[in-house]
């Protein structure tokens, strides 16, 4: 834990400095006059051992009181970083929403106002961006939408060795905590571990969390039952109702496009939205309860050694086309996910699954690679989880949408009557459904897919649509808030926006300098401005790695750098 | 001739001026003439003399920028100032027109019959069916074979002569009192010209229509006209019967014009007659053996055989005239001789060097000794180069001479083609057509070529200008002694300068011999027809020839 001690010292300094920063009230002129102290190199060298680290801390405290050197400037000066630091920040103009340009324009301005940085922004079209980011970008924008609503999905994929960010971050202490929380079944203990983990990561800052999204739906005033927006981050049709009429058809608009009706061939929000409403799952989320609950299963449990997860399937289940729905369908579903392993499918989520066996038609056993994996239940309720009809779907390749619709291979709350992909879809309630989503409270759903959110906005306001779901712009939401014709409903959001640092290639001569630069950047960012000015409140500041609303969330980053 | 027929069309003090970006241009100045019933009045003049403008002014076919003054009357109807429907009724019905270029004067997307019917239906109250029947009759009348079929033909399916016949059929469709024929045969070959002129003659006799014949060709005038009006620079300088004008011209311009007209069978002017160096029989400048030149046809059609199995020889210091009508392959042959066109088969030896398969470098070297003079004076000089640059370009290309030497050579050549030395700094557009052609000649001669190919060098020029160019040309040939392949369609010009003559038709060589042999004693029927068809600028001679021809037919 020597590492954490060293950084704790440095960060205590930073925290103090942060206070100074806010006390100074963003005084631009004073910032620009700041120069690097001549002794900077010595200070930086001194910081490499814990003992001198403390001394350095004392020095900075003194300097902080001087009021000419604020926190960020001080951190840089102490690390011997010559200012202004030239940064090139990459962002993508549309993949994470149209306001990215504005968001990064604001970040550039915030950074440059400190006088410590000169920022060049580079905006790159998405495909190139996603190909180049690992090899060639040192500071860049990303966003994340979770596969399942669990803190693990915000930590292990980001901060493990060889994470998908490819930012060369590799800290054994962090890795140890990640592994530990994953097998900790006690919820309180795990939450504590997760909090610790976040605080530790915040010291290293391999990424800088910025903002957290909210789920926003706009409903017409005649909608008496809005969709339930909870921390499962799923949009479910069943409980929506308008005109107090359980037979009224509700029209929903969205911009989330669909890739495929086949769960093995899609890994995106739009497809998952449809799939959660038309396929059953072994475990699913009941509205209002973001904890996986048995749906097809009557009950599920880990074996003694934790290596096998056994579920009892309910008896007498049928697909809407009359086919039998039993444990064989479940085995078929997961086997074909692994067999097909479609390049665009979610099969990579099944990394912990070794094999599936069916001792009898009402029992299914999942054999896992690691014992007591607390994320397994989440994975069963994730995009890889929708169960499909083994008599309709192909075991070895993707099944075309038209075949699925024609065979009526559904057993979720709804079946699909008309399917014009990414144009319009018509859903009718499935009378046989008895899952956790409850009996449909409407006569069906007509889903309209919009390419331009502005058209969706027009249609929700004019009453052409009853519900507008993902994604309206901040401008639209702000203006609809004040409209009498509609109501805006919010829910906790799983989406986060953050900056990735490549800890090897970013500016700075030594790892310490690089860290100092990351810290200085963190100190210079004003999340409230981003949230209020850029996003008009549709995103809220994200002060740590796990978003607010999930067990284990804290405010580690803001505590360290911005208070 | 008995008492004069009544005056039909009369122009009095007719003036036309055009508004331009600059000051108005006066194209026709106080012109007066008259046409009597059944009479052919030829209005003669060179380009820009106002002959076309004055005739079009009478039927209101000038652009709105034209200001017309004076009077023009047909019978008692005043034409000047008529508009819209009033003038429309006159056009075609009382005064019809025939144009110079039959291929552009016919609407390409309508059949011949359709266009004749249109003329009929515009003036007569008859049904379309009747009009069609009449169109067939008219086509028959103007001598088109199979009129029932041809009436459904589109213009591009007809030959040039046939097109002009269709135009004539259209002109006579409504029995007009006067036909204005504006250079009706200029675009046609000489044999076709003879036929069209015969047709017009016939029609005049059969229908009694008066004809205003606008032309620059004194031969045509001699052939056709009862009376002649000579125009020069917008003024009508002289008017009289054909005999008066040809035998006793009064105005200096008329005299000059008649003096410039080359005459088939006429005496060579003294300046052109002296032969400096006699042709050296042994040495060949150009030898052509069984030459074929084929061009690929359009998709789906056979290749066009431009030159078929032609053999001829050109001796040093000799002028060989290559004569033929359009499409005879004479130009293609000339282009082969300087390597502008690759032959398909046969042998082609230029100045002792076989051209087929010659390497580019060798060809460039050979080209120092070759030259070519083009037909069109307007485009034969690069408009962006001064006269001096144009002339000296071959020297620069072959890197001969210093700057001073080149300047000296340019001055020398300008002098040789009788242009003032200060013309060296002018640009082509500042020169007249004749002057430009002389500059072209100077450029061709700058490297002292041994073989010169001249492709119709004077046919785009007015007669009075042509004489000068020819004179310079012959003098220089005598002085410098280059061998010359002179390509032309004009037998009168040939008679002026050729040593030997080759006659071509449809890519084949018809006859080859000395000037005297070919022109005075042709052996082939085609050559005879050709000579026969050339109108001689002498009314008496021409009348006699016409009578002979008619008697024969």
């Amino acid at each position, binding site marked *: 834990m020597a590492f954490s001690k060293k950084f704790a010292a440095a960060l205590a300094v930073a925290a103090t400095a942060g206070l100074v920063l806010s006390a100074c009230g963003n005084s631009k002129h004073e910032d620009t006059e700041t120069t690097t102290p001549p002794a900077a190199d010595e200070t930086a060298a001194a910081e490499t051992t814990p003992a001198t680290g403390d001394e350095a801390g004392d020095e900075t405290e003194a300097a902080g009181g001087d009021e000419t050197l604020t926190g960020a400037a001080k951190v840089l000066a102490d690390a011997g970083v010559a200012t202004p630091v030239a940064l090139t920040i990459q962002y993508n103009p549309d993949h994470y929403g149209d306001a990215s340009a504005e968001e990064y324009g604001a970040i550039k301005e915030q950074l440059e106002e400190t006088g410590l940085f000169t920022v060049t922004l580079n905006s790159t079209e998405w*495909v190139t961006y*996603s190909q180049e980011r690992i090899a060639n970008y040192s500071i860049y924008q990303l966003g994340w939408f979770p596969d399942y609503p669990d803190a693990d999905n915000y930590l292990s994929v980001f901060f493990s060795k060889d*994470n998908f960010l490819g930012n060369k971050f590799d800290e054994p202490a962090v890795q140890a905590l990640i592994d530990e929380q994953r097998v900790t079944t006690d919820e309180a203990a795990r939450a504590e571990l997760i909090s610790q983990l976040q605080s530790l990561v915040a010291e290293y800052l391999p990424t800088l969390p910025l903002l957290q999204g909210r789920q926003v739906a706009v409903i017409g005033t005649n909608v008496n039952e809005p969709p339930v927006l909870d921390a499962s981050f799923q949009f479910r049709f069943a409980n929506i109702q308008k005109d107090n009429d359980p037979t009224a058809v509700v029209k929903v608009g969205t911009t989330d496009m669909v*890739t495929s009706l086949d769960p093995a061939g899609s890994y995106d929000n739009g497809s998952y939205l449809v799939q959660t409403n038309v396929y059953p799952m072994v475990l699913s989320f009941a509205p209002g309860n973001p904890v996986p609950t048995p749906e097809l299963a009557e009950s599920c449990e880990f074996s003694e050694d934790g290596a096998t997860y056994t579920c009892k399937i309910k008896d007498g289940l049928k697909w809407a086309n009359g086919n039998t729905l039993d444990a064989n369908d479940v085995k078929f579903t997961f086997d074909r996910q692994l067999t097909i392993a479609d390049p665009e499918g979610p099969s990579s989520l099944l990394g912990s699954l070794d094999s599936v066996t069916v001792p009898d038609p009402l029992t299914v056993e999942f054999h896992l690679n690691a014992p007591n994996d607390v994320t397994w239940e989440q994975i069963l309720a994730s995009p890889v989880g929708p169960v499909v009809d083994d008599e309709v779907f192909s075991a070895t390749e993707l099944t075309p949408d038209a075949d699925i619709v024609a065979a009526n291979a559904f057993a979720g709350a709804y079946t699909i009557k008309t399917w014009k*992909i990414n144009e*319009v879809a018509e859903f009718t309630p499935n009378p046989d459904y008895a899952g956790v989503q409850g009996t449909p409270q409407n006569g069906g759903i007509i889903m309209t897919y919009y390419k331009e959110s502005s*058209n969706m906005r027009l249609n929700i306001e004019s009453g052409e649509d009853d519900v507008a779901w993902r994604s309206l712009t901040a401008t639209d939401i702000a203006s609809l808030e004040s409209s009498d014709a509609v109501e805006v409903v919010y829910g906790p959001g799983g989406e986060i926006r953050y900056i990735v640092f490549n800890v090897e290639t970013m500016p700075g001569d030594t790892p310490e300098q690089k860290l100092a630069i990351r810290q200085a950047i963190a100190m210079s960012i004003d999340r409230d401005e981003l949230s209020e000015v850029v996003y008009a409140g549709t995103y809220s500041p994200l002060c740590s790695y796990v978003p607010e609303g999930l067990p284990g969330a804290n405010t580690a980053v803001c505590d360290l750098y911005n208070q | 001739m008995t008492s004069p027929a009544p005056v039909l069309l009369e122009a009095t003090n007719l003036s036309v001026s055009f508004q331009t970006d600059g000051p108005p241009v006066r194209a026709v100045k106080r012109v007066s003439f008259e046409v009597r019933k059944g009479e052919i009045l030829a209005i003669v003049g060179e380009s820009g003399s106002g002959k076309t403008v004055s005739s079009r002014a009478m039927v209101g076919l000038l652009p709105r920028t034209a200001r017309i003054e004076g009077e023009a009357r047909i019978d008692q109807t005043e034409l000047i100032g008529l508009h819209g429907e009033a003038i429309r009724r006159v056009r075609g019905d009382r005064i019809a027109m025939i144009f110079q270029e039959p291929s552009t*004067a016919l609407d390409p997307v309508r*059949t011949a019959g359709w266009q004749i019917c249109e003329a009929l239906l*515009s003036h007569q109250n008859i049904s379309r069916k009747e009009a069609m029947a009449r169109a067939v009759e008219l086509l028959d009348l103007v001598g088109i074979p199979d009129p029932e079929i041809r009436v459904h033909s589109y213009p591009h399916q007809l030959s040039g002569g046939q097109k002009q016949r269709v135009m004539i059929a259209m002109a006579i469709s409504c029995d007009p009192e006067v036909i204005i024929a504006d250079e009706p045969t200029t675009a046609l070959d000489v044999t076709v010209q003879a036929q069209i002129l015969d047709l017009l003659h016939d029609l005049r006799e059969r229908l009694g229509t008066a004809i205003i014949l606008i032309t620059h060709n004194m031969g045509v005038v001699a052939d056709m006209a009862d009376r002649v009006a000579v125009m020069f620079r917008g003024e009508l300088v002289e008017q009289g019967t054909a005999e008066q004008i040809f035998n006793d011209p009064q105005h200096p311009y008329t005299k000059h014009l008649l003096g410039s007209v080359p005459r088939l069978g006429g005496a060579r002017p003294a300046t052109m007659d002296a032969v400096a160096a006699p042709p050296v029989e042994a040495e060949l400048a150009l030898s052509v053996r069984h030459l074929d030149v084929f061009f690929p046809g359009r998709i789906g059609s056979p290749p066009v055989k431009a030159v078929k199995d032609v053999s001829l020889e050109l001796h040093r210091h000799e002028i060989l005239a290559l004569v033929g009508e359009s499409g005879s392959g004479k130009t293609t042959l000339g282009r082969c001789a300087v390597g502008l066109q690759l032959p398909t088969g046969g042998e082609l030896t230029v100045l002792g060097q076989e051209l087929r398969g010659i390497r580019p470098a060798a060809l460039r070297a050979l080209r120092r000794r070759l030259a070519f003079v083009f037909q069109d004076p307007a485009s034969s000089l690069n408009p962006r180069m001064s006269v001096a640059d144009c002339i000296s370009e071959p020297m620069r290309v072959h890197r001969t001479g210093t700057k001073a030497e080149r300047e000296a050579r340019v001055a020398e050549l300008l002098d040789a083609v009788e242009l003032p030395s200060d013309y060296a700094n002018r640009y082509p557009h500042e020169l007249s057509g004749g002057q430009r052609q002389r500059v072209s000649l100077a450029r061709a001669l700058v490297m002292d070529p041994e073989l010169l190919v001249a492709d119709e060098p004077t046919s785009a020029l007015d007669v009075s200008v042509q004489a000068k160019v020819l004179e310079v040309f012959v003098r220089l040939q005598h002085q410098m002694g280059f061998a010359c392949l002179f390509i032309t369609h004009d037998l009168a010009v040939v008679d002026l300068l050729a040593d030997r003559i080759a006659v071509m038709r449809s890519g084949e060589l018809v006859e080859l011999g000395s000037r005297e042999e070919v022109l005075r004693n042709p052996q082939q029927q085609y050559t005879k027809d050709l000579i026969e068809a050339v109108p001689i600028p002498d009314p008496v001679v021409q009348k006699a020839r016409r009578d002979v021809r008619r008697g024969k037919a």
Partner: protein
Amino acid sequence: MATKQRSSSAALLRYLGVRLALVVPTVLILVTLVFFLMRVIGDPISAKLGGQLTPDELERRREAAGYNRPIFVQYFEYLGNVVQGDFGTASKDNRKILDVVLTNGAATVELVCWSLIIAFLVGIPLGRLAARYHDRLADVTIRFFAVLVYAAPVFFLGLVLKLIFGAHGLGILPTSMRVSRTTELALADLGYDSHFMIVDALRSGQWVYISDVLKHAILPAVALGLMEAGIFIRLIRINLLETLRTDYVVAARARGVAERRVVSKHAFRNALIPVVTVMGMEIALMLCGAILTETTFEWPGLGYALSQYLLARDFVAVQGIVTAIALLVAVISFLIDVINALVDPRVRY
């Protein structure tokens, strides 16, 4: 003569045959060009999952999809499939390319037809008027108009139209999609699925549906049609002015044909020949206009689909659609040849 005509119409057939045969290399070049360009600019897997998978996982998936094989192997494999009529499946939304081409292609064709109607209605009379009043006020006004509609990018024109007629302006016309959802679903329920909305609506025979389709078409058609009209006006004006100066027009006047007839029967018909030819060449330009119009009005056409697939680096879809567009262009220019042959006898015989 009759025999000659027959043989020359055989020549025309041969000519048209050769024109058709020339389509093959054109399409081949386009497909090749697109194939290799697309490989340079990324693959659909990174496009979709580049933001959420590890580099190794991405690489594994690219490998699995066969994108790491030698490019020529992939190229000839693709060509082989195409020759067998298999254009493949889009990875962006798992649609059969043939289905995309038929559905979205129908939408584009419908849009282009509507816009051509507007373009003809506006362009031809104005072009004739401008030529008739050459260099007078009417001419200059029309020319300014033509320049203006040409200068306004389709998306801006569309935007202005939306502002004026859309929900925040007069609110009288829909500003997106081909048809309202209710109509679309109702027509689908009736089992009409020709991909041409107006055809389906007419078959249903219900005025509600027909008027719905027509209303949706108005704004996109006007936006695109006006741009085309700008081109038409200029083309027709210039060509009419040129034919009005030809000898055969003077000759027609000289034989006493009335001015109105001279213009309509001689000048206009001849002026159409180059206009038709140029239109054939500009068809690609119109498709570009269609892409922007489709984007502006959310019209689910081929161009819009293509730009979306391009963004997703969906090779298969892009190649398939480009092939379809190349064929479409070829067919149109072939049709234009036929039209030309109808208008111009010189081509016919």
